Each structure stands twice: as C-alpha cells, then as structure tokens.
C-alpha cells in the first residue's frame, strides 16, 4: 500500500517538471527558428534549464525508492 502511495506521489511530482520541460524545449525551438545563428547558445541554455527542472521529478523518483 505504501508503494502505491509512493507511485501516486511520483506521478504527481512528474506533472510540474513535465509542463516545465515542454515550455523550455518549445520556447528553445522557437528561439532557434527565429535566430538560427544563436542556436548553440540557446541549446546550452536549454539543457541547463531542462537539468534544473528535471531535478524536481527525479527527487520524486528517488523518494519512491526510499519508501
């Protein structure tokens, strides 16, 4: 039963980062399409943003194992 709660918790923890990563990647694609010459810089910043956002989902994933 605890594992079931943990699973629900992980699912909830993945909602926010999912939306966030979608926004980041979408806006990065827009930026690259508007200014292809800045693509390298945008890509680095996109990975940074994704890494920061993804951490929240991963903490939920780790909590699932801790339960």
């Amino acid at each position: 039963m605890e594992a079931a709660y943990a699973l629900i918790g992980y699912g909830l923890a993945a909602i926010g980062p999912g939306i966030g990563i979608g926004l980041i990647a979408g806006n990065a694609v827009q930026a690259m399409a508007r200014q292809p010459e800045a693509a390298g810089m945008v890509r680095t910043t996109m990975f940074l943003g994704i890494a920061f956002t993804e951490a929240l989902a991963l903490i939920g994933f780790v909590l699932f194992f801790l339960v």
Partner: protein
Amino acid sequence: MITAAETCDFINEVVCKPANVKELFEFANFGSSQISRTEVLILLAGLIPVALMYFGLRKKSTVPGKLQSVVESIFSFVKDEIAVGVIGRGGEKFTPYLISIFMFVLVGNLFEVTPLVNFPVTSRMALPLFLSLLTYVIFLVVGVQKQGIGYFTHLIWPPGVPVALKPLVGIIELVSVLLVRPFSLAVRLFANLVAGHVMLSLLLASAYFFIVQPGGVEYLIARAPIGAAWPGGVEYLIARAPIGAAWFTLGLAIYGFELIVSILQAYIFTLLSAVYIQTSLHPEH
C-alpha cells in the same frame, strides 16, 4: 530476479514479481575476494580515460590519426564549450578538472549500455555524491579566494535587493547555494542512471520471462515429446510470445535512448559544475 521467476506460479500469475526490488541492486563479489563488481568498474572508469588520453595525445602529430582526432575533439569540446564558453575569463585553468570529471562520468555512464557489463557505476549514490562534493569544495574555495569572506555575507545579505526582502532572499540563497546545489547535482546524475537501469532491467527481463522462461520456449523443447504433462501447450507460448516481443522491442528502443541519456548526463554534470564555478568566479553576472 531471474531466480525469483523460476519459483513463480506462472500459470496463475501472469506477471512474476521479484520478491524484493533490492535484488536489482545486489551483485556477488568475485570469488571469495572482497572486491565487488562496482569497484572493478570504478577502477576501469578511472583507467580508460587515462589510457585514452595517453594513447590519443602521445604523438601530437599535425595530421591527427583516428584516436587522436577523437580525443582532441572531446578535449576541445570541453575546453571551448564548457570551460571557456560558460566560465569565460579565467576558465582555462579549470579545464583539467572539467575534462577529468567529464571523461570519468561519461565512461561510468556508458557502462550502462555496454553489452555484458550493463551496469552504470554512477548509479551508486556514493560516486555522484563524491563528485558533486568535489565541485562544491572547488566553487566554495574559488568564491572565498575571489571575494574573501564577502562571499558568505553576500549570500546571507545580498546586495542590490530592497532591505525588506533581504532576510527572505538571503535565506533562499543560502539554502539553494549551500544545500540544494550539491544535493541536486548528485541526485540528478544518480536518479537518471538508476531510472534507466531499472527500466532496461524490467523491460528486457520481462521479455525473457515471456519468451524463454517456464511455459515458453524452454518448456516447449523439454516437455514436448511427453506431451500431456506440460501446461498450456503451444497455445500458451503463442499467447505469451507477442507480449515478450513487444517488451523486447520497447527495451531495445529504450536502450538507444539510454545511450543518449548517458552522454547527455555527463555533459550536464560537467556543464553545471562549470556554471557553479562561474557564479563564484564572476559574481557580477
């Protein structure tokens, strides 16, 4: 995990569960020695980059050979894109640290998709935690060297913020820099690799259960001449094999995905280390 499935009642239970998920993380030592598989792989992850660097850059010819051009492109990628590109002025002197951390994490991650090894050493929390603590010490030392004790007072009492907000922003900054940074840096690498490893294990082991394990091909070959004694019959295998094939296909797709994740996580770990050093080195940004 596989041994758990052999004792499983495969007629009544469609999906055989391992008794305990911790089995996924346990590995036997080599013989009676105290050296575990993880330690051997950590040693390899340390030695392979050294060997690669030594043999790649031994001759330094003007027209680089295959190995030399690979090593040089990795080196110049880390130097130009990460060390100088992110840290900026004064970033060159962090290149040795960043290249060693990048190569070590990269090789450690790629063990996940290496056939017959299939175990990422960075999915042991001790390793990413140690690496992130190294980065932690470096960016604290650099910050103190650059700004003296002002590094910490700026964290607690940030300049350029309205006085009413200073205590609140100070607490948030202090916690995020001193606690969340090393923790999230370690957990990001660890959790990505554990997630990938568990996903691959589950999918490919499921394929193994459904196609090869009791009731599947093995059973068919062993018991077919006797005929009546084996449960289900050919229909049983026909019903199970497509499920196994689907898991196997998905597992192979995830295998390719994990290859990308391994490289990307090594890049992100190095990139974030560089970003943290940069915030200590150039506080004005």
